[in-house]
């Protein structure tokens, strides 16, 4: 597990670098806010309303597809490691699994989920 100590230290150092550079910049830079400067940037016009609005459901369908295939990836990774010792049997088991998910993909394709409207 010794490798992960280094990774954790590295993550800490990156955070420290970010904090220190932001802190140094805070000491050096000017601070002269005014109302126009603090407004949201919309190419010069006054923003109307908040940007926090609802989004169409199409995003969720794509996200569902993503979860299915991401789960497939979770199964694929350990399988890829032991494939050599599993031999053809292991290959066909996974090919069947991918085939079943592929059927789901074909259904989604036919239903038009993969089209962006």
């Amino acid at each position, binding site marked *: 597990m*010794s*490798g*992960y*100590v*280094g*990774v954790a*230290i*590295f*993550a800490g*150092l*990156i*955070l420290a*670098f*970010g*904090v220190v*550079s*932001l802190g*140094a*910049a805070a000491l*050096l*830079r*000017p*601070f*002269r806010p005014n*109302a126009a*400067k*603090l*407004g*949201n*940037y*919309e190419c010069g016009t006054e*923003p109307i309303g*908040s*940007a*926090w*609005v609802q*989004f169409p459901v199409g*995003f969720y369908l*794509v996200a569902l*597809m*993503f979860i299915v*295939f*991401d789960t497939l*990836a979770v199964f*694929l*990774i350990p399988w*890829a*490691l032991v*494939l*050599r010792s599993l031999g*053809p049997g292991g*290959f066909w088991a996974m*090919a069947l699994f*991918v085939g079943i998910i*592929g059927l789901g*993909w074909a259904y989604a*394709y036919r239903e038009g989920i*993969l*089209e*962006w409207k």
Partner: protein
Amino acid sequence: MTTALAVRDFVAAFVLLNAVIAVVTYVTLLERKFAARMQSRIGPYRVGPHGLLQPIADALKLMMKEDVVPATSDRWVFNLAPLVFLIPCVLIFATIPFAPGLGLADLNIGVLFFLAVSALEIVGLFMAGWGSNNKYALLSAMRAVNQIISYDLPFIFAALIPVVLGGTLRLGGIVEAQRGLWFVAYPLLGQLGFLAYLVAMIAAENRVPFDILEAESELVAGFRVEYSGMKFALIQLAEYAHVIGTSYLGALLFLGGWLGPGPAWLGLIWLSLKALAVFLLVTWVRWSFVRIRVDQILGISWKLLLPATLSLLLVAAAVVAYSGGARGA
């Protein structure tokens, strides 16, 4: 003993972080010079000989700039986003071996670690887009999420092809498995896999022609439109670090990593040259193609790249399962 190890890790992490920052800073200059040459310009030239001090001048300038936080933004989210974005983008370098034994930690789950951490960048990116309370930024962030969930899959499957062929997730082991034949030279499988990796990589990096979330002509600069000063600098740094890290991964997975003619100590140079070649290829694409539409981007991923990479992965698996190894070993 543990203290000595921790000190060694600390020194290694410190050196790596500085190396990453130095390389990334100068890669921005390289890209600007490269882009300028492609457009018959000279590029940065005034600061230092041939503009060599330009990145330092840029960093100093951004540090001295006023930091504007929009009054209507979600302050905490807005201010934390650059840090949340920076950490995964630089952390991917932790598991990259630059030569045999030269690297912070050649983890036995190296590829998995890289893929997982690299996908985390979207959290910071979405925080930036949402926290700004700006319509351009939010649209950009939504597009970014849509793009990452579409292109992360081909990226994972393409990166798994060398894993299947090499039989290990350890990046050092994958390089050693290519000693006879680089995976990119593997008949048909290697070239198609590498091509899929490149396309998915460009999309995952949100670069032209997949840069709909930046889209300077419609979304101005997308999720970073409200950022200024050092926060903007950190976001830029993180983005370039991510591109360089993914170029290194491509060189390790497909281009034989540090393998090359000459003595072993040349390994670092070979690997860096290969990563640079991948990076320049991506940059070349960036300055040659036009941006494509959202629906086209989704179509390419879900209808072409995803089934293609999965099929390639299965073909690679069949080769391994029936021959007992990529090289019949």
